[in-house]
């Protein structure tokens, strides 16, 4: 018995090293440890031994079984690691090869600016109202304190349709439509397309404006400045400053032009701000009393301010676009740059 066991140990010891796969190992294992395997046969052969030898023989068989099982288990681990390593080696890829995906499109820069403005002012409690693009003279001019033949009409080269109808030259027309239907407190943005007969590198016959209007009790010029300061910081940088300077619009009094400190040079003067440190971005002012009266709002009770932002102008400043015409050519090489 002892010799037999030693022979089996020796055989397993040499054969196990020859196995190259877990399948071969399994077959070998069956040959020794399977139900009909050689070690199992040893157990069965115990019956032929004299009873007094059986305990010792039993122990020997038990030992060899345990030894063999451990050996097979450890070899299995080895082979498993080997196979895994071979597989991952074989499946190795060049991770720098291109990905498959369908790239998203892009928002138009004017839409990006518009969305950002809606976000900034929406958070301050401004609603959004879009008025008609083909307007009546009354809303575009008269109600805004620009009567027929007023010299301020020269500031805007208006496209006319017929009779009292024209293409709105400013989103300020939206102010009137809002104030006619809504009573204070009013905080509204009126974005949209506007039209002026002008076309060159900085003017387009169609462009976008966003009018802002606040009407309530106790609104001051300082409030206008505060709102625009916040706009400047959020649209450009936290350091951006605003500067008000006197101007004239028939629908506001006092009227101001609003300059922003140049985001490029921080106000030191550069090419973008033409050396002045300031960039003119919008017109604003306290709503003219006549405009409030025209809309049935008592100017002795309420005051307000309005501002008009050119979206193309903001986009050109913010994204460094040199020629306004790029915005309307719709070349995908241009549009794709405005990834969202």
């Amino acid at each position: 018995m002892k010799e037999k066991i030693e022979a089996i140990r020796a055989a397993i010891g040499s054969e196990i090293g020859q196995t190259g796969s877990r399948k071969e190992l399994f077959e070998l294992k069956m040959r020794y440890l399977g139900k009909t395997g050689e070690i199992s046969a040893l157990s069965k052969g115990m019956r032929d031994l004299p009873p007094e030898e059986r305990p010792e023989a039993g122990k020997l068989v038990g030992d060899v079984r345990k030894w063999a099982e451990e050996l097979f288990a450890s070899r299995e681990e080895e082979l498993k690691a080997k196979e895994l390593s071979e597989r991952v080696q074989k499946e190795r890829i060049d991770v720098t090869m291109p990905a498959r995906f369908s790239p998203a499109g892009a928002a138009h820069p004017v839409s990006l600016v518009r969305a950002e403005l809606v976000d900034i002012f929406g958070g301050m409690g401004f609603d959004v109202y879009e008025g008609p693009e083909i307007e009546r003279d009354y809303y575009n001019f008269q109600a805004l304190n620009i009567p027929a033949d007023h010299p301020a009409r020269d500031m805007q080269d208006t496209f006319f349709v017929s009779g009292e109808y024209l293409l709105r030259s400013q989103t300020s027309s939206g102010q009137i439509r809002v104030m006619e239907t809504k009573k204070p407190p009013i905080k509204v943005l009126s974005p949209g397309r506007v039209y002026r007969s002008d076309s060159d590198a900085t003017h387009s016959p169609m462009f976008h404006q966003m009018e802002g209007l606040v009407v309530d009790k106790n609104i001051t010029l300082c409030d206008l400045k505060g709102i625009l300061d916040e706009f400047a910081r959020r649209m450009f940088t936290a350091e951006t400053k605003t500067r008000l300077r006197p101007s004239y619009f028939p629908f506001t009094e006092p009227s101001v032009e609003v300059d922003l400190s140049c985001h490029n040079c921080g106000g030191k003067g550069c090419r973008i701000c033409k050396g002045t440190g300031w960039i003119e971005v919008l017109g604003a002012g306290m709503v003219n009393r006549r405009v409030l009266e025209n809309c049935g709002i008592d100017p002795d009770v309420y005051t307000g301010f309005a501002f008009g932002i050119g979206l193309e102008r903001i986009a050109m400043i913010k994204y460094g676009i040199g020629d306004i015409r790029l915005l309307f050519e719709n070349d995908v090489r241009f549009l794709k740059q405005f990834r969202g």
Partner: protein
Amino acid sequence: MKAPLSWLKDYVDIDVTPEVLQEKLFSCGFEVEELLYAGAEIDRCVVGKIERIVPHPDSDHLQICTLNCGSFGEAIQIVTGAHNIKEGDLVPVALDGSSLHGGVKIKKGKLRGVESCGMLCSGEELGITDDWYDGAEVNGILILRGDIPVGTDIKKVVGLDDYIFDIAVTSNRPDCQSIYGIAREVAAVLKKPLAALDLTYTAGEETTSGSVRVSVEAPDLCPRYIAHRVTGLKGGKSPQWMRRRLALCGLRGIGNIVDITNFVLLELGQPMHAFDLSKVQGGQIVVRRAAKGETITTLDEKEFSLTRENLVICDAEKPVALAGVMGGLNSGIGEDTAEVLFESAKFERANIRRTSRALGQKSDSSARFEKGVDAYTTGIAINRALHLVCELGCGTVAADRWDIVAPAAQARPVSVKTRFSAINGLLGIDIPKEEIKDILTRLYFSVSTRGDELTATAPAFREDIEGFPDLAEEVIRMHGYDSIEGTFLARASVTGGGLNAAQRAEERAKAVLRGQGYCEAVTYSFISPKDYELLRLHGEAERAIRIKNPIGEDMSLMRTTLAPSMLAALVRNIRRGNEGARLFELANIYLAHELPLASLPEERRTLCFGLYGEGEDFFSAKGALEALAASFGVRFGYAPAQRPFLHPGKTAEVTLGGAVVGYLGELAPDLAEELSVEARVYLGELDYAALAAAADLTVHCSPLPKFPEVRRDLAIVVGEDVSCAAAEAVIAESCKYVTCVRLFDVYRGEQVGVGKKSMAFSLTFTPRDKAVSPEDADGYVKRILKALHEKLGADLR
């Protein structure tokens, strides 16, 4: 508005640099668009005395001069070809390294072997005319007059040492469209006194009323008309100082009377006119509306046919001036004019504007009247002109005048009664009462106060003042806008804000398309009649709203479809060599209810998309619509259709709830050829408003199914004309458990026979209250097949 510094200094003691004055004007609302130095071109050019002239040894026409230029050199040798000089003359000397008019640089050099260390200059080389310095236009060297120290900068001698402020004046301040108006602001901002204009004159014995009778028949268009006669004219040039001022502002000297009217126009902003009284027939001046068809030939020899809308100045027989625009050729003054009638009038600005526009006739005068002239200045200006006549000694001023003021225009000072607290309340800061009072006083308001109450009477030349916000503006522009500190609606109501549901839905549609790889385009709202022709949309252009004054015919119609603009954008991308593009635009189309418009047109939000490039086909284009449908919770229907600009076999009409809401298709091959486009281009257009109306954007969450779904594939053979949609419809209605039908293969070939095709569908059965067994599924398929056979003649493949 051009204002020379030297002229402003006549009225205000300006003790700051031009740059500082520019800043000050900017801060109080007068942007100096350009600060020009009149002598910017001229450098290192000084007065020199010709000490000696000797002939050039090697030239007949050249002479060698020795110049004394004081500290710049007492014996400078210069060779010149001019011969109008003599020893002892003072002349402009361009030294070595100097610059002259037109960018000319002068360097030391040799002329025929003789060294020349500069150049003697003519007036032209200094860029000046006789108006700047008499003698500047002679052919030769400019000979200077008087006793001028040698070495003096020539710019100081000829009037070029001056600054010109080119100022943008806003349209509410016509009173500042003049030198004196700007001087008023300069005085206010510098806190200096303003010198009064000399308006005195000595009158002779002749009268105006004895020679001419003036009547105003259209007082609504002519609120004030002043006429004053001047006799015994002595024609000739006006003095150098006056012509130099005109030249600084870009006007030429014509003759003393015309120069006086131009001078007054610049100085006070009041256009004036002078009629030759010998040409005014019947001793009459009538200000009236023109008769229809009446004609006038203006000074520039253009003839105009007039209407009742035009105001004319007439004598007893005919118009002698187009009021406020230009005098008539028949009454203009000339060298032999013996007596004139000066006109200083206020014409209604809107009427002058309309006349100027309608006739296409403009002048300095009409431009000025359009901006607005105040009746007060009309009276000042005539006195100023008469003062200048006396100063120049060029005529005798009559003892009386006509001054006809319409009752409506009787000067009544505008008084604003308000409170200091109202002004500060609007501004949001607290400016002391004393300062407010001081600022308004400096701006020529007369101010009285009682406690918080404030009454400010505007000066007669300020017709823009209406209420306390105007006073607030005057105060803050002088006090300084930099004192306005930002506050954040501290005392206002809190309101909600942001986009409403419809506006958010638009953002959603755009996001869906961006997710599908589409870039957002923005195109002009106006298109060309030719665009409709190109797309074979004949007759459609007549339904579009037409712009009366378009930039050009190609931008004259408000579009009723976005397709032409989208097509143009795609073609531009193709021509630029871009390999592919997916573009969309969400914008309005403009649909008139009637033409010409009698009501606001419908502005219908419309979505257009277009694409081309490798891998793109009709179905990838259709993907854009299906992505939208999925997001908006709607189902589009598709049916073969025709559009004149699309491929007859690859065009679908898109329906929603039975109504046509759009189309989709490939660009017609003949149109592609016409555009020289080889790529296949796909276009779709959708009534976004209809989509938004039908959208179901609320999410209703369903529980997950308790039982697993069962899938079956089904391949059928049908006739060519059976559409996928028809088969899908039969499948869906023949078994209620079918929740998804997806076509995954279409096969044509011998196996299925001619005129037939095989379609393979993947079907998904979703159990409701009990599991679907394999046997159940087989049963459903059988039932579906039976229905397909009965309704579409389909057989199992």
